[in-house]
């Protein structure tokens, strides 16, 4: 099991290194296949570890393997250790499994792109970093993986480095995430100061169980989770990150990396249980994000941005679940979301690919007839996202909504927000569906739609991965159903025991409300965008401006910084630094001119100078003796 875990971790790294070092020595196709096969190999290794774990009894399933002491400073020693337990194996399977499918999809999607090799090296690096994040045996390795996924996300968002918006989006994502990394590092400093360890077990055993310190630690970790998972107030980078290639959006900005925040909360849940107020804050922010993102998604016109806001919204659900104490439900939704959101992105990728890069849904329309397979895949993904039974989202989302009912008065607020989110999800998802696939084919589509030869709607690698994800989105939810059938909860129980347990009645209420509201959203979307019985309302400026978050940060941080630096430039740099350098050079020039005159070329005067100098020295020495 340990060997399998190491192989799972190191295969993608080996692939990234090999592709980088081989450079132009290998063809683009070879780089693509190396990357795909290593990621699938990782998945195989994770599966082997999983099967081995299944054969053991509950208590012996978790295992820490330390290869060597990675860092040692004074009394603190941090091992390069991997922790393979019930939680991390689930994440490993999701990351390597969905990752393998998406990398395979990239083979077709990135075909013909310049610098394809660089893309595959980056994406392998990402898979490695993400696996390091979930497998790391202590918080320090988790932080290392945390930072490295940020780096690979930056590299991949800015993959089209000649496109200024992509570069700006990459920088924005990096800065926002660096803020989260910093708060997380502060939390780790506090943990080291108060417990002397960063291993999960010892930290949970000796961490302060209340008071300011516990709150600060949880807040720091929450800051990291909010930044990585694009939740209010650190969410503004995710929609811009859609500048990256579509498979990147699917893998990093939907299925895996952005859900790392949820993983972090579940992984360090005792620290959040010591600080219940911070946990409530996390749940509140998640609820606020899920409603806000749902509202913004209603007016977006870029197909990928709609899905990106939907991602933010769904991660909001996971935050609500994880922070409210329903850890397995949060993880379950993380898993099903990875399936159906990757599916939606990849299906959108097929459309974008077929329309030669067009992403504006106003120019699409009527694609359903031309691309029936993609339409079906998108429909399954949308139904799963809205939570219509029997698709995956129904099981996972409704269990989170039910769990909020078990949390008292605050829980009812969360419940209301979740239901509002369910309605919005139905509305924006099917707005997208009807606008893109329904109605008559648009002029733009008629002109630009190009289908590859043969029966397929895209390259083979893209079609089969989408088909596989369609299957997963359709049946992935059957892993768990309320209290009737809950293997995932049982499986995760030793690592993250939930402290909410919704009764059957609550499950039923939540499910009925969510499904009815989701269906109402779909019906409304149908009435407005397909049947056109209701006029399309004018978009609200507040929503089009995305609640003015960008403007707020601009006014709050960027403008003052710009003013201060301009002021410093005018008042300090120009007169003091630039001026003083000018004066210094003038002084040196003058002094050098004066001294230069002493160099008169007369050897005898030099000899006189030497002799008189020695004479003066001799007199000085003799007189001071």
């Amino acid at each position, binding site marked *: 099991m340990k060997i399998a875990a190491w192989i799972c971790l190191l295969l993608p790294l080996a692939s990234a290194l090999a592709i980088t070092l081989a450079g132009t020595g290998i063809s683009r196709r070879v780089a693509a296949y190396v990357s795909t096969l290593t990621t699938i190999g990782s998945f195989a290794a994770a599966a082997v570890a999983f099967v081995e774990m299944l054969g053991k009894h509950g208590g012996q399933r978790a295992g820490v393997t330390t290869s060597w002491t990675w860092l040692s400073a004074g009394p603190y020693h941090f091992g390069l250790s991997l922790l393979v337990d019930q939680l991390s194996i689930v994440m490993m399977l999701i990351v390597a499994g969905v990752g393998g499918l998406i990398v395979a999809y990239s083979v077709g999607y990135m075909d013909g792109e310049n610098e394809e090799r660089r893309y595959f090296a980056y994406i392998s690096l990402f898979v490695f970093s993400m696996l390091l994040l979930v497998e790391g045996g202590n918080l320090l390795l988790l932080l290392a993986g945390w930072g490295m996924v940020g780096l690979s996300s930056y590299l991949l968002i800015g993959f089209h480095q000649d496109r200024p918006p992509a570069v700006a989006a990459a920088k924005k994502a990096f800065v926002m995430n660096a803020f989260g990394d910093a708060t997380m590092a502060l939390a780790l400093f506090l943990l080291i100061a108060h417990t002397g360890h960063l291993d999960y077990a010892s930290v949970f055993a000796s961490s302060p169980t209340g008071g300011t310190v516990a709150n600060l630690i949880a807040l720091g970790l929450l800051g990291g989770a909010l930044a990585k998972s694009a939740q209010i107030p650190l969410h503004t980078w995710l929609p811009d990150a859609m500048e990256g290639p579509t498979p990147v959006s699917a893998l990093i900005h939907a299925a895996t990396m952005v859900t790392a925040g949820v993983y972090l909360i579940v992984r360090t849940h005792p620290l959040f249980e010591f600080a219940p107020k911070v946990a409530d804050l996390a749940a509140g922010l998640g609820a606020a994000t899920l409603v806000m993102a749902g509202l913004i998604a209603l007016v977006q016109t870029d197909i990928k941005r709609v899905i990106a806001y939907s991602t933010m919204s769904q991660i909001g659900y996971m935050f609500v679940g994880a922070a409210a104490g329903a850890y397995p439900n949060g993880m379950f939704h993380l898993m099903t979301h990875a399936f159906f959101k990757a599916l939606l992105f990849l299906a959108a990728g097929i459309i974008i690919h077929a329309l030669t890069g067009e992403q504006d849904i106003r120019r699409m329309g009527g694609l359903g007839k031309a691309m029936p397979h993609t339409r079906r895949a998108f429909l399954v993904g949308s139904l799963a996202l809205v939570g219509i039974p029997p698709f995956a989202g129904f099981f996972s989302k409704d269990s989170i909504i039910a769990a909020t009912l078990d949390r008292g008065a605050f829980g009812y607020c969360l419940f209301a927000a979740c239901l509002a989110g369910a309605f919005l999800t139905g509305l924006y998802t099917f707005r997208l569906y009807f606008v893109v696939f329904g109605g008559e084919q648009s002029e733009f589509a008629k002109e630009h739609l190009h289908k590859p030869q043969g029966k397929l709607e895209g390259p083979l690698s893209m079609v089969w991965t989408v088909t596989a994800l369609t299957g997963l989105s359709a049946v992935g939810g059957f892993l768990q159903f309320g209290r009737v059938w809950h293997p995932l909860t049982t499986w995760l129980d030793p690592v993250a025991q939930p402290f909410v347990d919704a009764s059957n009645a609550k499950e039923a209420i939540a499910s009925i409300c969510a499904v009815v509201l989701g269906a109402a959203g779909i019906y409304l979307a149908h009435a407005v965008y397909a049947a056109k019985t209701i006029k399309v309302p004018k978009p609200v400026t507040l929503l089009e401006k995305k609640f003015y978050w960008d403007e707020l940060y601009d006014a709050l941080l960027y403008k003052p910084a710009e003013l201060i630096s301009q002021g410093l430039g005018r008042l300090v740099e120009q007169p003091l630094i630039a001026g003083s350098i000018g004066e210094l050079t003038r002084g040196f020039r003058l002094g050098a001119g004066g001294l230069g005159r002493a*160099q*008169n*070329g*007369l050897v*005898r005067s030099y000899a006189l100078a030497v*002799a008189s100098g020695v004479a003066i020295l001799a007199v000085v020495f003799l007189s001071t003796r």
Partner: protein
Amino acid sequence: MHGPDISWYVVLAALLFATGALGVMLRRNPLIILLSVEIMLNSANLLLIAFARLHGQADGQIFAISVMAVAASEVVVGLGLIVAMGRRHVELDVDKLRTLRG
């Protein structure tokens, strides 16, 4: 210990050194300047040998031999330069040779 007192040697060396130094500073012919430099070197040699004898140690004498070797090489280079100057009909006057002034 035979022979004159150490102070005699010191005084003689000082006189020789002063002679050499004055020669370097006053004369303008490079040949004479080179000769004066040799006189200064030899005054130093004289002191080295005198003190070596006073202390009964050979170190100073070894130094003196090294100095002679260096002086000989230096003279070779210096004389070579002066001869080259003479053959190119450059006036042998150090005050005229001042192209290196700043």
